[in-house]
């Protein structure tokens, strides 16, 4: 599916989707995001929880089956999620390209 609704992802969502190219649990996503952004983006637990539940509803990510229900869950990006990331990347590239053209 293409990003035909002209969606703009939040930073938190974009980085979470990137982090979930390999399976991670909530805290892992926070650490990975901080690492990727060189410490600039620290996801707050509330923001991440909201982002994860919304992305699960949209099927951008899925929860991996865990043995115990209440233990910490791991998540992974879906094919739909990957297409969303690609569309967002194209949009970001357009922004950067146009920004550079005018400013430089």
């Amino acid at each position, binding site marked *: 599916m293409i990003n035909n609704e002209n969606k703009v992802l939040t930073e938190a969502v974009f980085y979470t989707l990137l982090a979930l190219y390999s399976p991670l649990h*909530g*805290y892992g996503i926070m650490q990975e995001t901080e690492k990727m952004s060189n410490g600039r983006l620290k996801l*707050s*637990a509330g*923001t991440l*929880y909201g982002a994860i539940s919304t992305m699960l509803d949209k099927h951008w990510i899925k929860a991996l089956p865990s043995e115990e229900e209440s233990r*910490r869950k791991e998540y992974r990006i879906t094919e739909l999620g990957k297409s969303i990331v690609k569309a967002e990347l194209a949009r970001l590239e357009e922004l950067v390209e146009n920004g550079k053209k005018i400013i430089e």
Partner: protein
Amino acid sequence: MKKIVRKIFFVWEYEKEEQWLNEMSKEGWELVKASFRKYQFESGIPNEYTIRLELLDKSLNSKESTSYLNFLKETGIEMVGECKQWIYLRCKTADGGFEPNNRALYNLTHVLKIQEFISKTKNRLVALIAISMCGLLIMNHLEPSNFADFISGVCTGIALSTSIVTLSFYPFSKRTNEKVKAAINELYTCE
């Protein structure tokens, strides 16, 4: 050293309450337990913890709330107290506290949750006023008796006190509406 403080904050004073708890934390009083009107502190390192008040969508024992609290625990946020659906959370200040990534969105969600809670309560109060008014009308049509007088008195009492409480919510509603609008305006420009 332990310290118990009894203090009353109304629902709409959650910001004041949070501020007070964080000031206590800065003075080295760590909140270890909280319930309605009663706060228990222990002396510790000043400003070690940041406190946040949150309103849960569902009751504390529901599956949704449990999974939310488990998630928070995993990231180092503990629940130290509860009062119905309000929860008191604490997080090490050094870990960045509770600072949300999107302040406007956070404010909006928070205020809307509280508004929902208030409007539910207000609806119940209005229903209570209506019921006691009906009771009053019925009693007025009965033969005068001690019983009818007593019930009328009770109904009048309930109707009057509930009306006062309901009216006291109005300035609060106005303020929350302004907060919602401010947060939406913010969202026009920034994430």
